[in-house]
Structure formats: C-alpha cells, structure tokens
C-alpha cells in the first residue's frame, strides 16, 4: 500500500491547521481547531503504520514524495519518506500532538492563538525532520523547530523565560550553524565524487559517497556537536534544565518528547553512516560521555527541590542510555536505542504532564510544598507511580525493554563493551530508582502537611484522557514491543551494515592512495594519512 502524498500530508496538515486558525478570534474555536488538526493528523499517521511494509528493502524509504529542480544547478530536492526509524518517531510526534493541545487547554490563559499556531508549526517542523531525505530540507525543518520553541518558552514561560529561551536558541544555533558548514562541504564533495560535479544533498547519494578519512574527523565533529547539544550529551546539557523549568507544560512535553530525539535521530541517521570511521574511532569517547551523563544526570536529579528540574535532569540520564546504545554498533543496542527514544518520549512526556497538573493546582513545583497527596488524589498517584516505574525501567513496562537491549548490546560490543563501563552504566538503574522513588516519596506519601493540599481535586476526565494513551503505550512496549521492533530492525541492520561496509571501503581507499605516496616519499615519516584526501 502506498498512498500518494501521505507523508507530506502528515507533515503539513498541522501547518494547514495553523493557517486556518489565523482569522479566528474565539479561544474555544482556536483550541478545538488545534485539537481537531492534531487528532486528524494522528489518525492519518496511523495509515503510515498500517501501510508500512516491514519486509520492504531498508535501503529504500516508503511513502516517498519528491520534487526535484528547486535550484538550477544544485541537486537539492523536496524529498521525504518513511523508514522504520522515522516511522516510530513520527508516530510519537503525532501522538503527542493532541495530548499537548489537551494539556494546554486551561494552562495557557493568554495569547492562545499565538500559542496554538506555534504549536502546530512546531509539529510540522518536527515531523519534517524525521521524514526528510535531503540534507538541506532536513536542515530547514531542523531550524524551523527552533523559532516556535523559542517563542513558546519566551512568551508563555516562567519568570526567567527570556534567559532560558535565548540560551536555548544560542546553544542550538552554535551547533547547527557549524553543521551547516559541514553540510555544504559534504554537498560539494559528494557532488564532485558521485553526482557529476553537481552539488547534492540527496541522502542516498551522500550515503554512496565515502568521505575521505581526513575529512571525516572534523565533519563528524561538527555534525555530532550539533546533535549532541540537542540530545543533550554531557557536558552540553545546561540549556535543558533552564528551558524545561521555564517552558509551559506543553513546551516541556514536546521538548523532552520529541525535540531531544532530533539529536539522537541525527546521530543515527547521519553521523554514523556518513562518517563511519570517525564514528567508530570516537565511539568509546562518546560512550564514556554518555555513561558520565547517565550517572551525573541521575545524581543531580536526586538533589533538586523542584519536581520539574528533577525530571529535566533525569532526561540527561536517560538520553545517556540512548547515546551509549547508538555508539555500541550492535543490532541489539541500536534497536534498544531506537525504542528507548520512544520510551523516553512517552514516560518523560507523561512525567512533565503530571508535574504540570500539580503546578496548575498549586502554582508551585517545589516538592516540599506537597507530600501525602496520594490520599486526596489517588488517580493522580496511580499515574505518577506507573510512569515513574516505567521510567525507572521496571520489567513489563517500556523503559526496561530499551535499557536492557542497550546495555546487553553494549556489553557485547567490540567498541564500547568494557565491563567496567557497562557496570557503571548499569548502576544508572539503581540511581533511577533513587531519584524517582524520592519524587514519589516527597509528593505522594507521608502525612498531608499543608492545609491547602487537603482539598486538591483529583484528576478530571480531560487529564485522565491525555494520560491513558501514554500509559497504554508504556505497557504495550513493555510487554509486546515486537510490532515496533520488527519495523525498526531492518533499518537498524541496514545502517549498521552500511557503517561497516563504508568503514572498510574508506580504509581501503586510504591504503590505495597511501601506498604510492609512501613509496614516493620513502624516508619521510607520518605523512600517509593526509594524502588520502582527493
């Protein structure tokens, strides 16, 4: 099954909804339009899931839409499609769409039109990132997400929103501008090598091009830096707690649920297969940073007084697992990393929603302001405990599946499988219990100490409605992740095989070039690698 324009429809429908909203004046009309748009988009995106053929060639995206010939003389196209990796991330994005709208229903009490418009534009940007098969197009979508998020934090955020918003943008821009340089270089070099001298950013043409060893180092660096900031990988993470704490709930859910995944997605999609030698050479270093992040994020999380900051730092820890899995270069770990991206979106998204629900009731997120509210909010308590357990990696819920596969695959990895490193990473599951149980203990348990908490209303139907789908997916992935893993496995295998082939090819190329050079310069030492550049 291959419906035409389905991918484009899923990408741009939110944008259409945003345009429809522009002439509207009534807040309820705006909200309902946003809800309808995101819901319809989600339902349509289910067609992608249904129609996706897991047995199809992983070297070929499905549901492809392309328009070539934008710029004369440059091979830059509108080229979108779906593969296993993109499919799951797009579904996560479209699922979170209506949930975020619902969560903002009363929370956003001013400039609603602007907020929901930006939200929908943001969704188009995020979906586009996961569907783009042209590097320039990817870059446009990547940057497109920056602007709405900047305003969402800067306008609807907390007290220090301006500082947080500017920090968010500057951090990300530093990385992405350097990446643009990399993209341009890559486009020219690949154009010369495989596209008859025409600048190209077609993903598969770039994939067919073996980047010379000498260039791989700095190219990998600029790409990885941009994505590592987004992830965020320790020590590039300090924009995250500020952005999360200041952002409104909906912004935090999107930020944690989807925006961070653009970083890990970029590492998997571009950094690994484009620069295989550099990626494998630096794998251990990145794995070490990832493991430092796992432990560091968890420990810092434990000592936060603000519940939202606790969840924010826990993201640093969780994403550390994902990065470790990516750089293990084994199918098990890669599959684990992919499913863990989804898991983190679900469980951390839900945690932010839950913390937001507390905030809406008390206008504070300090844990010391709560305590004992399980007594008055049992349904809230149920969802918070459930989500915390999923996040802590309890078997039977989603977090375990991802972490288990990542750690198991990393342990057998030839590149990062040092027992001590994996043991340290595994200690992250202890620390996850430490900070998550602390969150439960401080908010839910003990006697009610503040009078005002005695009358807190439990969750209403709208709040339950937006948590239930997330809980269902947490349980589903925890018990039967097969349908999801089956769809990503060909992609994961294809990427890893590509990495291996290209890595060997680049080494061979370097050797061939090096040999005559070495003969010519007999006697002079250490020059061989430099000459590998065409």
């Amino acid at each position: 099954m291959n419906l035409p324009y389905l991918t484009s429809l899923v990408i741009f429908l939110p944008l259409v909804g945003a345009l429809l909203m522009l002439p509207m004046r009534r807040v309820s009309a705006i909200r309902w339009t946003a809800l309808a748009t995101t819901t319809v988009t989600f339902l349509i995106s289910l067609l992608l899931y249904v129609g996706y053929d897991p047995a199809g060639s992983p070297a070929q995206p499905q549901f492809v839409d392309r328009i070539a010939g934008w710029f004369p003389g440059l091979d830059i196209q509108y080229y979108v499609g779906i593969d296993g990796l993109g499919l799951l991330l797009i579904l996560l994005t479209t699922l979170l769409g209506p949930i975020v709208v619902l969560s903002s229903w009363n929370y956003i009490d001013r400039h609603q039109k602007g907020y929901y418009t930006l939200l929908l534009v943001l969704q188009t940007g995020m979906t586009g990132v996961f569907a783009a098969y042209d590097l320039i197009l990817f870059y446009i979508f990547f940057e497109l997400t920056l602007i709405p998020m900047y305003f969402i934090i800067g306008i609807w955020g907390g007290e220090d929103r301006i500082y947080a918003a500017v920090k968010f943008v500057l951090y990300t821009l530093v990385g992405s501008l350097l990446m643009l340089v990399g993209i341009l270089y890559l486009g020219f070099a690949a154009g010369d090598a495989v596209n008859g001298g025409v600048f190209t950013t077609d993903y598969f043409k770039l994939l067919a091009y073996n980047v010379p060893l000498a260039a791989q180092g700095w190219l990998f660096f600029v790409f990885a830096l941009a994505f590592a900031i987004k992830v965020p990988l320790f020590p590039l993470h300090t924009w995250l707690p500020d952005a999360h704490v200041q952002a409104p709930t909906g912004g935090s859910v999107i930020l944690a649920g989807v925006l961070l995944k653009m970083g890990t997605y970029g590492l998997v999609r571009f950094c690994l297969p484009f620069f295989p030698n550099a990626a494998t050479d630096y794998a251990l270093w990145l794995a070490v940073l990832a493991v430092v992040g796992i432990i560091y994020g968890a420990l810092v999380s434990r000592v936060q007084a603000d519940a939202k900051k606790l969840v924010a730092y826990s993201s640093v820890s969780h994403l550390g697992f994902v990065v470790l899995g990516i750089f293990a270069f084994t199918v098990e770990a890669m599959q684990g990393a992919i499913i863990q991206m989804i898991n983190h979106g679900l469980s951390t998204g839900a945690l932010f929603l839950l913390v937001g629900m507390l905030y809406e009731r008390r206008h504070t997120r300090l844990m010391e302001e709560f305590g004992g509210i399980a007594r008055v909010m049992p349904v809230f308590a149920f969802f918070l405990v459930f989500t915390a357990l999923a996040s802590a990696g309890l078997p039977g819920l989603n977090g375990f599946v991802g972490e288990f596969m990542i750690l198991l695959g990393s342990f057998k990895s030839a590149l990062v499988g040092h027992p001590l490193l994996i043991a340290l990473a595994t200690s992250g599951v202890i620390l996850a219990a430490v900070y998550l149980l602390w969150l439960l203990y401080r908010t839910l348990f003990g006697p009610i100490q503040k009078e005002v908490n005695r009358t807190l209303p439990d969750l209403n139907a709208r709040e339950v409605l937006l948590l239930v789908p997330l809980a269902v997916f947490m349980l589903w992935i925890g018990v039967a992740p097969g349908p999801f893993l089956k769809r990503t496995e060909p992609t994961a295998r294809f990427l890893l095989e590509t990495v291996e082939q290209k890595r060997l090819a680049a080494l061979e190329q370097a050797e061939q070039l090096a040999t005559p050079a070495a003969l010519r310069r007999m006697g002079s030492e250490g020059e061989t690698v430099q000459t590998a550049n065409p």
Partner: protein
Amino acid sequence: MNHTTLVGLILLLPLAGAVFNGLGGLAFHGLRRQKVLIGALATLAVAVPFVLALYLFLTYEGEPLLARFFTWIAAGELELAFQYRIDELSLVMTLIVTGVGALIHLYSIGYMYEDRGYWKYFSYLNLFIFMMLNLVLADNLTLLFLGWEGVGLCSYLLIGFWYEDFKNSEAANKAFIVNRVGDAAFLLAMFLLFREVGSLDFGALLADPAALPSGVVAAAVLLLFIGATGKSAQIPLFVWLPDAMAGPTPVSALIHAATMVTSGLYLFARISPLALAAPGVLVVVALVGALTAFMAATIAVTQYDIKKVLAYSTVSQLGYMFMAAGVGAFFVSIFHVLTHAFFKACLFLGSGSVIHAMHHVEHTLHERGHHGHLDPQDMRNMGGLGRFMPATRTTYLIATLAIAGFPLTAGFFSKDEILFKAFEYGYNGHAYAWIAWILGVVTALLTAFYMMRSYVLTFEGTPRWPMADQVHPHESPATMTLPLWVLAALSLVGGFVGLPGVIAHGEWNLIHHYLGASGGGPVAEPELQAHVPLAVEWALIGLGVAIALIGLYWSWTAYRRHGLAYDEMLRERFGAFYRIWAAKYYWDEFYDRAIVQPLLRFARNGLAAFDQKVIDGAVNGVARLMAELGQRVRRVQTGVVQAYAMAIVLGVALVLALMLFG
C-alpha cells in the same frame, strides 16, 4: 485442557484479580465497599491456580513441559519469549506460592477488613502472586527477572501500604533501592551470559556449563549471588528486610518470609548446573550464608518487637538455605524453603493474630480513658496472651518447635539435612564446609533459644499491658485461625517428604528423588566420593536433637522464671557483644555514613554546584564574551545587513578554505 492452557490460567487468574480489584477500586468507589466480593475474588484467584497446579503436579510425567505464549523482546541474536517451564522444581515452587498464598489471602480477609485500602491491598497481593509465578515458572533468565523485579515492586507497594507514616514509605524506598543494587548485578550476569552463550533460555544456559570459560561462569554465578543477597536478604544487602516489617503482617508472612525472599534459593536451584561449575563462588555462598545465619540469630535474641524477632529469624533461616546451596545441596535448600514456608508463615500469621488482639487492647484502653501509646508489637507489653487466644498460642508453639528443630517436626528434618550436607561436604575434603557447619550448629542453638523466648514473652506469664485485669484481648476470627491450623499441621508433618539418609538408605527422601538430578530432576548435585559412616550420621542427628532441646529448655525455664529480667541478665553477661547484637551490628549506620550521606553530599555540593558554576558558568561566560565583542563590532559596523553579509562571507570563506586545504 493441555498444559499451556493450564499455565495460562494459573498466571492469568491472579493478574485478572489484581486488575479487577485495582483498577475497579480506583475507578468505582462503589466497588470498594463490596469487601466480601473483593476478598473472595482475590482468594479464589489464587486458590484456583493452586488446584490447577496440583493437577499439573499429579499428572506430571517426568518430562519438562514448555508453554510458550508470545515473543517478548527480539533483536539481533536476542530472542526472549513469554515461555514457561513446568518441571519438578517449578511445580514445587508453584504449589508453595499458590498454596501458602491462598491461605494468606484467606487470612487477610479478616485481618484487613477494617482497612480503608482493602481493595488496593488485595490488588497488590494478587499482583504479587502473578509476579512470583512468573519468577518460578519462567523459562529464561530475563522473564525470571521480570518476576524478580515485579515481586520487588509489590513488596515496595505493600511495605509502604500505610504510606501516611513517613517511616513506612522510607522502609519501602529502602527495600526497593537495596534490591535494585542486587538487581544491577543480576542484569550484568545476564549481559555476560548472553555474550558468551548467545541466549538466556535455561535450556541453552544450562546445557553444558563445562564448555564455557570457567572465569565467565564464576563471574556470572557471583553476580547472580549478589542479586540473590538483595532479594533473599543476605550479607551485605539484608538491611531492608527488618525494616520491611512496616507492612501489614500477612504481607510479612507471604512476601517477606514464605515466598519472595526465597527467590534467591530458587534461582540457585534453577541454575545449579552453572553454580556447581563455579566451586570458588560456592565457597562464598556457603560462608556468607552461614555468617548471615549466625549474625541474624544473635540479633534476634535481643529484639523486643515480635515481628522484628521473626524478621531476623527469617534472615537467619535464609542464611541456612544459602549454606546448603554453598555445599552443593540445592535440593536441600528447596526442602528448607518448603518447610520454612509452613512454619514461618504460621509464626508471622500468629504474630499478626497477636497484634490484632493487642490493637483491640489499645483501642479498649483508649475507650476507658487510658491515654498513652501502647505499641501492639512490643513483647514487653504482652505476656499471658495464651489464656485469651488458645488457637494462636497452640499454633505458634507448634511452629516454634518446628523452627527450633524439635524431633520429627518439619524443621527438624530440613535443618538436620542442611547441617548433614555441610558436614558431608567437609568430610569430602571441602574445608570451608566445616566452618559453615560449626556456625550452623551454633545458630541452631540460638534459634531454639530466641524462638522459645518470643513464645514465652508473648503467651506465658502474666499480662504486662495496663489495666490487664480489666481489659482482655480476644482470639481472632475463624478466617484467621483456620490458616493458622493448616500451617501448624504442615509444620508438624511437612518434613516427612524428606526423611534422612539413615532411614532406608535415603530411599524415603522423596524430595531428593523428585528434585535431584540423580532421580531425573532438574536440580544438579555434586559427585561425592566419601560417605559419612552410618554411626556418625546417627550421632549428628543426636547432636541436632540435643541442641534443639537444650536451646528450648534453657529459654523456656529462664524466661518462665525471670521474664523480661532475663534479658538484663544476658545483657550483663555478654556486655559489649550484647550491645553490638542489639545495635544490629551497626549495618544501617555504616551504610548511612559510608555511602548514602557522602553520595548525597557529593551530588548536592559537588555535582549540582559544579553544574551551575562550572559548566553553566562557562556557557554564560562565553555568552558575555560574545556580547562584549558584539559591542565592539557595533562601533565599527552599525548595520545589521552588513553583519549578516560578513557572516556569510566568512562562512563561505571557511568552507572554501576547508575544501582546498582540508
């Protein structure tokens, strides 16, 4: 019905009960009031699986049966399924879990009837049974781990069941986190085994341990043992179990005595072929077990909280079981799991009956205007209860005799078998087994002593609560005493499934033949060359009987005569030792000062400060630098467009430069 359907029902009924009572009670407040319905459904959800398991047990033909439902996690070489294994070992464990479980559900109907969270309680209890069944029936290590962490979750939920008291929630957190330390080791064992074997199915893991590098086997078994020290409360991770008594008493009986805490022993019996291939690790297992048994017994002597006595007693008995595992007698450790499930569940439920009665006393005292707190678990407030609660008293006494090893009771057979196996292993040249044996014999004396002490202080003598002549406690209702009688009867006769080798040359040691590899069962046994002479074997039995009787008699006469004052005499006689025992060897203080506090300080003053000042400071510093540069640039070039143009030029120049010289 074929076996797959049966296994499916055995697993799904408790799960369905948990979901029905849990989500139903959460969503519909009307359901919460249907207490009879809730309790009956929950009990049936465990009793029916018991009957089904009994049917499987009776029709079992000696060949392991596999029941596969669906794939769980598959990626690369990894292939894990919800696949369950029915064999002798899992059948015995399933019968214990569902049988004792059903009795404790029944008991809970009466015990928890007045509690606000009745529906929640039964939901958690059913969920526990489901997870425990996953643990004992799983056919791969990871599914076992699902049950392993799942029972830990239920333990957490039930320890913190009365969460409005901080102390209970703290105990729950401690239990979960300490267990997670063990679980991390368990995970590493799985990663290691998967790397070496390429599978985590028991069939593949246990097929040929000799083919694996011995270092790998040793590391894996050691890691699994660390995992077991968490769940089964051994040194150094036992510290959570005494605190876990914060939960409702039937929970202590089911989870923290009869079933969950024996998971580590089940695990070792399951992987016994691997464990036997790691003789060095077995030394550690035996000595840790023996030391734990001894240490916990000395602490138990000094406790006043009746549940704390039983908690340390459980730690001690689990130590015995690991001692057996450490001398290769895995089936004996399962034998003791079985008998211990009977008498320890009986003791805990008996203590629950006592606490129930003491609550009533406290309540009546309040009504009569007597204020002041009366700790219903403190034996210093009890005494003479036997008169008022004859059924509780009789069953408690029977279970006390059983755990002490009084001749022909269940504990007599299983504990003697453990000590004999340790002796035999030492006799076969494994010197460490002698050390374990000596510690085991001393512990047997202590066990008889502290258990009889708890019996006498609770049920004998004169009452010590205020206004004792006017306020009288009552015996518990039949739903509570019936399980007590059943468990007491089993504590008396349960040992006959494992008659010692001196009788009919071991022909009548049914559990040995059923579980042991020599009889076609799944539990591996070491090959022993030297046989202990029959006379020595009889002498050892005589020694066991003598020790039990001495301990019981000593304690009986001392506490009957002196009452609580005898503790003071002990305190004087043992001085510093007694202080250390009473202070529980300072384990909690050690962990708090050596690990918890330093780590928190490091996180708070080290990392969090580092995060703000150093990392973020650097970021803000760069930003300020840029801002200053911007100021200067502005003096030179004012227009925004020019700045952009320059940036573009610079960027293009950089790209060109890199292309040309890169």
